[in-house]
């Protein structure tokens, strides 16, 4: 395994420390007046949602590089991004309803952000599905799906928002009370570093897989695998 770079180690440290202290910071943050204690879900919910969208863009970017630049690294970036999009998408969709139970009185509402995130999650579950079961050429198929999916998000958002909406507006973040800002950005830093760490792990896995495949191919070409395969 390759030696870890200083940036990666820094991110790892921030992520671990952040995960350890963030709950404390969040609990100590001022109580929101209208929603009460349940508003604290928001500190992690928003970060998960941001990272989910971030992962989608990473995946689409990697897919584009793979499709048009024939870059194998692009494909590795895309698969790591796709998995993280699903991971953080699930986190967003589970924490959101827990908050909604208190704030809206129901776990699920057909709100624009909820619905968009749900569909985004479905598209990227389909992405992982097609990579897994797509047969030959599935990487290219999945890459096309990632591009379509990324292009689809604004349209889904627009169509659902005209259909119906009750989600808090994005102005929530800029209108945070001063006491809430510290924990919010601390959580942001933690999650961003967590993203880098998980992304790095996934990329390393994909790199070793590529190395393994290469080695198998080379060994087969050299006729070294006959007989004992």
């Amino acid at each position, binding site marked *: 395994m390759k030696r870890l770079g200083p940036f990666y180690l820094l991110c790892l440290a921030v992520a671990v420390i952040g995960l350890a202290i963030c709950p404390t910071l969040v609990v100590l943050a001022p109580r929101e007046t209208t929603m009460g204690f349940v508003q604290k879900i928001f500190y992690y919910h928003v970060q998960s949602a941001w990272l989910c969208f971030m992962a989608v863009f990473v995946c689409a970017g990697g897919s584009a590089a793979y499709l048009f630049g024939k870059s194998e690294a692009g494909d590795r970036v895309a698969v790591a991004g796709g998995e993280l999009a699903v991971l953080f998408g699930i986190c967003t969709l589970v924490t959101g309803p827990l908050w909604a139970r208190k704030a809206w009185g129901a776990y699920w509402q057909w709100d624009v952000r909820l619905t968009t995130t749900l*569909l985004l999650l479905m598209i990227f579950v389909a992405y992982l599905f*097609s990579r897994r079961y797509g047969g030959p050429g599935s990487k290219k*198929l999945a*890459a*096309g799906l990632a591009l379509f999916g990324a292009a689809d998000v604004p349209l889904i958002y627009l169509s659902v928002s005209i259909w119906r909406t009750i989600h808090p507006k994005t102005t929530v973040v800029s209108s945070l009370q001063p006491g809430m800002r510290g924990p919010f950005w601390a959580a942001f830093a933690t999650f961003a570093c967590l993203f880098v760490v998980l992304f790095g792990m996934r990329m390393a896995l994909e790199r070793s897989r590529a190395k393994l495949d290469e080695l198998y191919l080379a060994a087969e070409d050299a006729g070294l695998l006959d007989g004992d395969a």
Partner: protein
Amino acid sequence: MSVVREVALLLWKDVVVELRAKELLFGTVFFGAILVLIFAFAFYGGERPPVDVMSGVLWVAIALSGTLAIGRAFEREREGNTLRALLLAPISRSSLYLSKLIAIALLMAIVELVVAVLLSFMLHASLIEHVLSLAALLLLGTVGFGAVASLFGAALGRARSRDVLLPLLVYPLSVPVLIAGTRATTALLLGEDASFWLKFLLVYDAIFISIGVWVFEPVAVSE
């Protein structure tokens, strides 16, 4: 050869093949009719069902029979190994994609005609009064759906589990079409303004046809 001529030739080929076999046409139309029947049993309780149900039935029938048609169309190409022959021919990939898209839209137009007529008779939907807007709406919606579905139909040609994967890939991506289609149909049936959704579908079509033309070559033509 210009793109228009290539598309026309490929489209003619698809039409002739279909007119000889009539398998896709009959199969899909019959499937659409059965769907309307099933929905009628499910939703028709003696009273006239609400307008939302009518538009829902129409668009669900389009989505389901469209997937069936696309899956079968590419299955046929795969059986005869004709997709490979087409890829070897000196024609641009975009024309291949566009011709498939138009062929699917043509086929679906017939299916939609049958479904709409059945709906207006069996569920007493007043679809006839808004024929022109409805036709424009169905055309835009079908093209949008086909733009996504024909790309993945072609790309899934070699996958073993393509029958399972096709709807899994296509439905989440075509949700905007479904929302716009049902909302606009409901608006038309209630005598309201549906022009926003028509414009929305136009934008959707433009975006997805462009991406489809752009990625068809690398996605569907591998090896």
